[in-house]
């Protein structure tokens, strides 16, 4: 046993150092180099810029939309909402009073602004990350009446806008029907601008 122990010390220490260099430094740095060279946009967060070059978001990560003029994103438990430095779900269990206290006013608010019937689940539930970039098409359609009213656009035009932005599952079974909220709201702004001209 004593011999087993002493004979292990040099390999244990040296292999720790060698593997730290290979796996902790060389591997991530090499991958960073390759990623930056071949896929610079994705490797740097798939950022979206406006005409002046200001970063207005990422196609991958969700951002808060709380204004009634925009399609609003799901409730978020990341910091004070869509905090990119504090991703989190609500972690509320199915029987939590706090869950009901949060969902109930949201449901009432959606009904007050024109949504009818039972609401799609994702519209009033917090996502796992708090940074969900998407809505289900149903959750977007539930907001059409409000947006059409505020922007003075015909309902059908707003609905059509949502329909054209629905992403379908890959190969018919990977993923769900969904709408990227940032892309949809950008399109909404463009549609509004065109109409005013």
């Amino acid at each position: 046993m004593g011999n087993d122990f002493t004979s292990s010390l040099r390999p244990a220490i040296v292999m720790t150092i060698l593997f730290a260099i290979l796996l902790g430094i060389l591997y991530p740095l090499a991958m960073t180099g390759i990623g930056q060279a071949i896929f610079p946009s994705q490797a740097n967060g798939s950022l979206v810029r406006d005409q002046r070059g200001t970063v207005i978001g990422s196609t991958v990560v969700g951002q808060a939309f709380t204004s009634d003029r925009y399609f609003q994103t799901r409730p978020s438990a990341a910091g004070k909402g869509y905090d990119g430095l504090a991703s989190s779900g609500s972690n509320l269990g199915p029987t939590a009073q706090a869950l009901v206290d949060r969902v109930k006013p949201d449901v009432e608010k959606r009904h007050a602004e024109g949504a009818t019937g039972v609401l799609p689940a994702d519209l009033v539930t917090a996502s796992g990350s708090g940074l969900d970039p998407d809505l289900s098409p149903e959750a977007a359609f539930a907001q059409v009446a409000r947006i059409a009213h505020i922007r003075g656009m015909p309902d059908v035009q707003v609905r059509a806008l949502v329909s054209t932005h629905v992403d379908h599952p890959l190969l018919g079974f990977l993923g769900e029907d969904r709408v990227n909220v940032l892309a949809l709201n950008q399109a909404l702004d463009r549609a509004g601008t065109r109409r005013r001209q």
Partner: protein
Amino acid sequence: MTLQGWILIVAFTGILLALTKPVGLWLFALYEGRRTPLHAVLGPVETGFYKLAGIDPNAEQSWRRYAVHMVNFNFALLLFTYAVLRLQGVLPGNPQGLAGVGEHLSFNTAISFTANTNWQSYGGESTMSNLSQMLGLTIHNFLSAATGIALAFALFRGFARRSAATIGNFWADATRITLYLLLPICVALTIFYIASGVPQTLGGVVDVSTLEGAKQSILLGPVASQEAIKMLGTNGGGFFNANSAHPFENPTALTNLVQMLSIFLIGFGLTWCFGKAVGNTRQGWAILSAMLILFLVGVTITYWQEAAGNPILHELGVSGGNMEGKEVRFGIAASALFSIVTTAASCGAVNAMHDSFTALGGMIPLFNMQLGEVVVGGVGAGIYGFLLFAILAVFVAGLMVGRTPEYVGKKIEAKEVKLAVLAIAVLPLIILGFTSLSSVAEAGLAGPLNKGPHGFSEILYAFTSAVANNGSAFAGLTANTPWYNALLGVAMWLGRFFIIVPMLAIAGSLAAKKYTPESAGSFPTTGGLWVGLLVGIILILGGLTFLPSLALGPIADHLAMIRGQLF
């Protein structure tokens, strides 16, 4: 439940079954120490490492020597990571300017990553610098996985060798697995992840002016390179707090599928490799069949419960399945499937918050871990854990027919059965002991976010996850306290190494035995009867031990949920 959801589950299982033999063949080449095509590139690295560390890769080791070298290597890695985390504030690669990580959190985290658990008491984005993620954590993801697979190889040799005093060389096993298996697959996976939208940069925070004119800060970092090994090595420690639910870790339904596949890939291959090592691949398929039965039953229950949703929310006028804690791009099916894959294997990555699952939907992930992470299981750890149950199963079969039990050509005698029971008993002892303690101590009761039975489930889940080396959480529990960091740290260490050492002793004992050819009186260990016996033994041991605790947590929670009672 939808047809689309079931197509996903069937396709997922089918792809893995198609990959089982190819991966098994590759693993078998490494098990035998054969030359692979990759030796042309990485061979010099391997021999260079041996030379510098003074290792003779052909020197065979007894089980004791194998165990001591393995533990000391892991201990050296643990100290290394502890140092990196404590010194974070003065080390480079820290664009956010984060301070050093505190004592009890560093203790917990260093053990966690060494033990292939990757329990995270912290939120990655607010605690770990880029250098800590790379140097402190990513290396464990590789080496704890390599350790697990090496240990499985050692046990395979115990079964395969005859009248032998040794079970291989730890350094050769661990180095070859890292260089010729984990690293090349991770390079390919990393490039795929980057192409799909996972960041890979040394930069830090990007400031965003949102469309509404608000400010949002987005954190970037070397995410993809860590994501690849996090799944392949069944580690599960996320770069971000939200783990694989975070869009930067898991941006699309396709990356989600690849992540789930890579959790199970090596575990499936190892069952085939075991069969090949003991000279009959049907032995491997029998094990995989038992695993698949338990897996598919688990998927069905959780998917059914999550798709059915929460009646309390239905009452408020919300339709459909349970979307609290889930991402729209994955939906119900892919979230339910992921939760079962990650807890069946000892991965612990999550793409949805298990804490917000329905009561029974969340119970299955918990139960998966309580079964000892043997449904596919962690890389290496799954199959050696499973073989401990196989030893008990042949023992039970032997009692029934009144003969000395045999398994794949080796007589199973009192020594092996005692050691197997010792290894298996560690799990419930620590889980139930520490959970009880935390349910009465003030410092323990301060942890849960949810009240009522769900709060108890949070504590039970934490210790189950730690001992089983899973690392997923009912994350409402505030675990970054001295109480939980210390107890969970101890639980993770015991859960890893107090199973490994008896298991290696079994390997040594088996290797020394003569080969016992199969006779008319042997209990067959390949057919349906054997698979049924295995499933039964695993369920009875897990069920009997943990059913009372499940009744207090998720089952009580379920009854409250259908009655509409709130806490």
